[in-house]
């Protein structure tokens, strides 16, 4: 089976965006704020991969579990020091969101400083790099293609299991729905918050660790990717994890495929405008249906065809 390289790139990118969008949506569900620092967690993962591959000289895949744990710890620390404190002080959604922006600026600057440190200490160029050479090959594919896809699918399956079958996951959903009622029922909201921040931070960092294996990475690429993440999350409905899976994959795929197609049809210069594609999605979703795909799904369920279809299926999906 031969898959065109552009499709492989699109699928790898879409897998990463999907994982990031899931984390973004989970944060929004539990903390009620859009976490603008989410993309920058991915930046931390990017530099984890770089450190493993170029400084320690081992395969960047070692960075995946390490960055999962590191990202989780970082996210928990951020929750402890900033978000939790501000929430307890009664800061509104806007104040909390600004604090995540501040964290984003802070982390991006730290990543830049780290890149300069690597240059000063190890004499390597860490400002913009690609780790495609460090990847292994499997049946003619770059190793990251099956790995990214399977990590994405595994994340979705594990998360589905976690959210529907385990006690922690159900407690998480309850906390997202109504924190006060959940705490009345004996759920430790604080611990649930910590767990969800660990999970989202870890997932974001893991997705970030995969990025440099196929795409050019700079210290800013983590912060730049946030638009795609938000577009994916918003396309999926912003408050629905399953929507975020579809939305993230859709935005990730279309960002690369649409750019390539437009470059072929209109001209090469379109490539410069690639960051506008997720913005276009974002604005289009907000203008047409602010609830995203979730809203479309709900509307479709209410129509006659939808009712018939669900009667045939015999059950409520999601």
């Amino acid at each position, binding site marked *: 089976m031969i898959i065109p390289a552009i499709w492989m790139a699109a699928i790898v990118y879409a897998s990463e965006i999907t994982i990031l969008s899931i984390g973004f949506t989970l944060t929004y569900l539990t903390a009620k704020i859009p976490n603008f620092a989410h993309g920058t967690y991915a930046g931390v993962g990017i530099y984890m991969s770089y450190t493993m591959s170029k400084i320690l000289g081992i395969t960047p895949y070692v960075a995946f579990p390490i960055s999962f744990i590191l990202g989780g710890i970082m996210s928990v620390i951020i929750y402890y020091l900033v978000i939790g404190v501000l929430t307890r002080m009664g800061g509104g959604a806007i*104040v909390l969101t*600004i604090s995540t922006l501040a964290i984003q*600026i*802070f982390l991006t600057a730290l990543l830049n400083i780290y890149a300069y440190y690597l240059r000063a200490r190890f004499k390597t160029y860490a400002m913009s790099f690609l780790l495609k050479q460090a990847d292994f090959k499997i049946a003619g594919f770059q190793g990251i293609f099956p790995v990214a896809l399977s990590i994405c699918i595994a994340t979705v399956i594990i998360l589905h299991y976690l959210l529907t079958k385990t006690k922690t996951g159900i407690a998480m959903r309850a906390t997202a729905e109504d924190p006060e009622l959940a705490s009345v029922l004996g759920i430790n909201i604080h611990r649930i918050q910590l767990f969800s921040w660990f999970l989202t931070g870890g997932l974001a960092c893991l997705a970030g660790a995969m990025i440099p294996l196929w795409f050019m990475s700079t210290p800013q690429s983590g912060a730049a990717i946030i638009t795609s993440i938000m577009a994916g999350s918003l396309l999926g409905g912003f408050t629905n994890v399953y929507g975020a899976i579809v939305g993230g994959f859709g935005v990730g795929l279309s960002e690369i495929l649409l750019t390539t197609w437009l470059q072929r049809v209109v001209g090469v210069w379109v490539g*410069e405008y690639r960051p506008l594609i997720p*913005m276009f999605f974002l604005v289009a979703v*907000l203008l047409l249906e602010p609830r995203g795909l979730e809203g479309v799904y709900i509307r479709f369920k209410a129509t006659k065809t939808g009712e018939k279809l669900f009667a045939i299926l015999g059950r409520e999906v999601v």
Partner: protein
Amino acid sequence: MMLDLIGSLAAVSGSARLVVDIAMYFGLFVIVAMALNFQYGNAGIPNMGCAVQVIVGGFTVSALTTRLTFWLVQQGGVKLLPYTSDFDWVYNNQINVSVLTNPYLKSHPFLAVSLLLFSIAVSLILGAAIGWLISVPAIRLRATYLMITLITMADASQIIGRNVVSISGGTLGMFVPNVFAWYPGDRTVVMAVITLAIGLVSFFIFRTMLNSPYGRLMRAIRENEITVGSVGKNVTGIRRNILMFASGITAISGCLLAFYFSFVVEANYQRAFWTYWPWLMLMIGGPGNNAGTFLGCALIVAMRRVIIVNKYLFSKIFFFPIAYFESVLLGLLLILVMIFRPNGLIPQKLLYIPGVNYRQLVREEVRVDWRTAPKASKSGGRFKLWGGKRED
């Protein structure tokens, strides 16, 4: 010192340049931060897209004023190099502006000043237009949606500025006519004085608006939009109006910056610079308080300028460029201010409403039975950082 500078006709240099620079940036940031205070501090609109509005001001000067000047100068009988195609627009720009246009403006001060006024007026209008445009997707939705769209718009504006050459010369940037070519002294001093004057005027405009019934309506929307909507006010419309008005004012600062440098390039209008720093100024000074905004602007601008001027000292200590140190400082200060000084250095005061008998209110002590109040509320605004009991 400023007065001496205004009087002097020699070129500004040394520490005097630092003073002019601080005055200019203080003026610019006062305009941006006060407009932001008008939006966020008083009306609760989190405008994260100040950079868009500032960039519109800059692009007005580079794309419209420059073309208009060229046309007028050609009418005046000066032969300019061709500038219609993108290539000519960028590559003949320097000769067209510095060699051919500026001497003409030197002998026509009236034309030059009217060009400045034209640019300010047009950037006010275009700024308001862009304010309307960026408000369309999300003004009626939740505040966080508005933040998301505005942040992405700020990026989009910069991408467009970088790639559409006919606006501001793309990545190369372009020179704009010097409207103070007729002034024998230093142009930057005049620009700083004008900017400060506009900042002062906008301060009085904002203050008057805030103390009018409309200002109270804004505060009411900030506190509870559902109540305001239920008494028959068009919340979305008011929000849009405020965003448009403040956008127009913000755009003026971009226009003034372009004339200060006599140069426009999109890299001068970065999101971090024109959105996050004004937000920090607002937060430090205290949202909802113009005096606080002044204080915040003065503190931050002085700090940044001193850091930049003493760059060579820092470069001996750090192995990385100073810009990242500034970013670290920006992020840290923003978080620390929000945690330890949530109301800013000067907390906001209630608006004075004519007709309310304040003396009566003060005399009638309101008695509250604190014994029945929950324990947590006694601590007031205080909190525990470590191991504090959760209050919910």
